[in-house]
């Protein structure tokens, strides 16, 4: 087994007095896709945002590619190759689709994803490149959000609920794109509500329950029922 690209150790994260993560540890192997699942409020988004540098942890460590990045601001993490597709897309509404993507390259780790390569993967954005992001459809906005993260040339792509509010056909297409990215060598962490889809698309699975890791295992070695039990905190404890 190759050494992990991302290692998280004993992470405690607070929002004011509210503790969102309790001693969370996990590791992500280079070139693998990890599904991060759990009920609403389990801490999935918090964990991704902490990895991306949006939220400093109270204690614990985030190591990326052998370096401690726990205290690094987001732009330094992006320059090292961590990019986040935030929950709710969070596009810059007054900028055009293309400008959103260009902004994503502000602190790029590599120029592996120039505009023409992005447009080859997302032809629907190429058609709407001059349109304001706020006027795009939900699926187009999600594609721009992924493209914005890709523009940073990441080696680790964090995707937060990319299928939320999209038609099944669009979700299917997005996941096809993701599997294309994986064949190109990207490492992915995917937060996904749809358990079946998450287990289909990923090699490893981490299930959070009320801010703690309830289950961490290769997808092949767990049954759907075991994951559901961990999801709702039933059984083993």
């Amino acid at each position, binding site marked *: 087994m190759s050494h992990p690209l991302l290692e998280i150790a004993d992470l405690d994260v607070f929002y004011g007095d509210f503790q969102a993560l309790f001693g969370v540890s996990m590791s992500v192997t280079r070139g693998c896709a990890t599904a991060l699942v759990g009920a609403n409020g389990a801490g999935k988004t918090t964990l991704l945002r902490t990895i991306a540098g949006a939220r400093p942890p109270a204690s614990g460590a985030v190591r990326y590619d052998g370096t401690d990045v726990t205290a690094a601001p987001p732009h330094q993490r992006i320059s090292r190759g961590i990019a986040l597709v935030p929950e709710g897309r969070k596009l810059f509404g007054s900028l055009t689709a293309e400008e959103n993507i260009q902004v994503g390259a*502000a602190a790029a780790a590599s120029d592996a994803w120039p505009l023409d390569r992005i447009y080859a993967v997302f032809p629907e954005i190429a058609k709407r490149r001059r349109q304001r992001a706020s006027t795009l459809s939900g699926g187009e906005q999600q594609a721009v959000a992924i493209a914005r993260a890709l523009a940073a040339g990441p080696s680790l792509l964090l995707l937060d609920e990319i299928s939320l509010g999209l038609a099944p056909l669009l979700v299917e297409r997005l996941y096809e794109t993701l599997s294309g990215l994986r064949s190109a060598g990207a490492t992915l962490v995917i937060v996904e509500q749809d358990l079946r889809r998450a287990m289909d698309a990923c090699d490893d699975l981490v299930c959070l329950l009320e801010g703690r890791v309830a289950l961490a295992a290769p997808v092949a070695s767990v049954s759907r029922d075991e994951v559901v039990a961990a999801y709702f905190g039933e059984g083993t404890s």
Partner: protein
Amino acid sequence: MTWVNAVIQGMLLGGLYALIACGLSLTFGVMRIVNLAHGDLAVCGAYLGLVLSSALGVPVWYTLPLLLPAAFAIGMALQVLLFGRALRHGVLAPVLVTFGLSVMIENLLQVAATSDPRGLNGGALALASFRLGSITVSWLFLAAFLAACAVLSGLQLLLSHTSWGRKVRATSDDPDTARLVGIKVRPVFATVAGIAIATAALAGVFIGTIGTFDPLTGTTILIFAFEAVVIGGIGSLWGTLVGGVVMGVTQVVVGEVNQAYAVLAVNLLFLAVLTVRPGGLFTSAQAAGEVRDAGALG
């Protein structure tokens, strides 16, 4: 012909108002800071021009290559040391901080420079004029108008077509996400503040050359700048130019009828716009929504 003349003189005066206002428009549009010290910083620019031009013995225009970079640096420093820190403590803190700064500047200027009104040495340009048919146009007012157009279109070009401009607009849309996608928000804000204060200083130099100034002139400047921004539409640079021109034309045309009502008319116009179109004349639906939301909070 009197009326045509009044409209032309009003437009030129409006250019000066727009020049004063564009920095205010920029800081509010990007950082959501209402800088109550904006007018006082313009007056500081005028005093700095006075000091430099008397020390060097040249008309104030020749000091601009020194004065504008200095103002830019002061703006950056103010943003990093003062405004940026205040912004982290909610929307009210920057209002209090800039109000305090305004009071400090006015009092320090009174101590350092007395309350005597001053004027700047504008050289030959200050008194020169040319005739357009039967209308006399002052080169100085025309220069202020052209400077306003140049500054506003330059800013608009930078914002629309450069990587810096994209970062500024993205940060203005959503500072948290901007940080998350790798934009270093603090340097972006610092350069915006630098540009805003440099344009204020330039406006201050024109004000000091066209008329006189004293340590308390800043308050009047702030009111006119604020009105131009609101009339034009918050966050719209071209709107600010139109706002300034509408104010200038109103002032001179009403002044043609009765000088006593000229400034009152401008303020009534401001109130009318605020009542009928609270978002201003040239505002996007999004910005208008934000203004409404801010109103609902206040």
